[in-house]
């Protein structure tokens, strides 16, 4: 298989998965340069679907790396090709993103507001209530997302966004609820099981920080959170046993100092029974999956 084909497939996968949305600036710069070189050298050998998919990727990368002139030229090329189709939400979305990026938020809003039946655009409009200055204070954004989800309850991406916002603002129980809504439609989504486990774990840490008493009832209640967290990490591993994040979560859970307190409580003896075995297993698996990383470094992935 030629290197050109491998590179093309990689770029197409980056585009279709949207992985570039979570790239750091160094990665963005790298992919931007790579794509530019690829399109210059091999653009002619692509079929039209591949070519315009890569143009779309190039548009996003140009906007994210402040190459506004380049972004505008790609957008114009896409408009020349598809602009006659006034129903294309995808093109309108790109236009609105460009306008938002260059600071013309009013024009972007006007474009997105044209037809409220266009779900993709309404969803984008929701993001305009986001607080860019302080991402932790996003009450308005959260309430708009809730409003949108009342109208479009089967939009899983919106549920994932809402869950992310709840996690960021420390409402872990609500985040768990949102992720469970996704699991109702995607029962094999192992990254979502991991997120549920992680949010239960965060909720436990939050309650542990505020814990002022050693009352048995409270300890049992908190152990319940750990138990839910562990169950969800294990379910994620059951579906995909090479998903390292769930193993890390399991390793963190089984190494908590809080577990020492549990030894005296009979009601939670069932929870503790498998702890040592799971810790040993998770440690072994993490070393196997992430051989180059130190266990202490690995735990930082959960932060």
């Amino acid at each position, binding site marked *: 298989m030629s290197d050109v084909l491998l590179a093309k497939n990689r770029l197409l996968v980056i585009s279709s998965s949207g992985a570039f949305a979570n790239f750091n600036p160094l990665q963005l710069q790298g992919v931007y340069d790579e794509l530019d070189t690829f399109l210059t050298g091999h653009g002619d050998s692509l079929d039209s679907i591949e070519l315009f998919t890569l143009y779309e990727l190039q548009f996003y990368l140009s906007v994210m790396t402040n190459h506004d002139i380049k972004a505008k030229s790609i957008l114009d090329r896409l408009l020349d090709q598809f602009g006659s189709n006034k129903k294309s939400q995808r093109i309108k979305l790109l236009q609105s993103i460009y306008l938002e990026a260059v600071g013309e938020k009013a024009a972007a809003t006007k474009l997105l507001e044209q037809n409220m039946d266009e779900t993709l655009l309404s*969803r984008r409009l929701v993001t305009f209530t986001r607080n860019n200055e302080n991402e932790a204070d996003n009450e308005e954004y959260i309430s708009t997302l809730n409003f949108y989800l009342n109208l479009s309850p089967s939009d899983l991406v919106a549920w994932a966004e809402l869950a992310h916002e709840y996690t960021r603002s420390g409402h872990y129980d609500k985040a768990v609820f949102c992720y469970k809504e996704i699991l109702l439609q995607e029962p094999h989504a192992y990254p979502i099981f991991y997120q549920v486990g992680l949010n239960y774990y965060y909720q436990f840490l939050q309650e542990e920080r505020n814990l002022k008493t050693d009352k048995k009832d409270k300890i049992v209640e908190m152990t319940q959170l750990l138990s839910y967290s562990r169950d969800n990490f294990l379910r994620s591993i059951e579906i995909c046993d090479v998903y390292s994040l769930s193993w890390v979560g399991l390793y963190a859970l089984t190494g908590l100092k809080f577990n020492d307190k549990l030894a005296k409580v009979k009601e939670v003896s069932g929870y503790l029974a498998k702890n040592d075995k799971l810790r040993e297993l998770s440690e072994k698996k993490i070393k196997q999956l992430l051989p180059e990383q130190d266990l202490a470094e690995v735990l930082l992935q959960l932060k």
Partner: protein
Amino acid sequence: MASSLVFYFVGVLLLVHSGYSSFEFHKLTVLSHYSGSLPVDIVAEAVVGILIIVIGSISSIKNLPVLSLKGEKVYHKSTYLKFIEMKNAVTVAEKVGLSDYDELKNRIGFINIVNKRKEYTEWLASGQTKA
């Protein structure tokens, strides 16, 4: 790939040969007014030729390597077919750095373009571009 070309070559050769033999046989039957059916060896040669071509085409369907998001080559565990059981089927995708549920993780429709640009500008200003 090279082995499947050998299969194709041998298979096509046998098919052509059986076709020519059949043509010769029919010419002969017209000339000699013989009314017997096609000899078994010609039919067998054609069947074997087709089988060899089919085997060649099946063996050419191989799982090709893919580039991970980090740019490393990732090979499939199985040479020919992909795994059916989900636990095994997702292994390669995980090695590549992807999953079927990336849409929920990346949420491109909700991208905070303003902050992304700000982050990039700060990174450029910090002079870590060669890091």
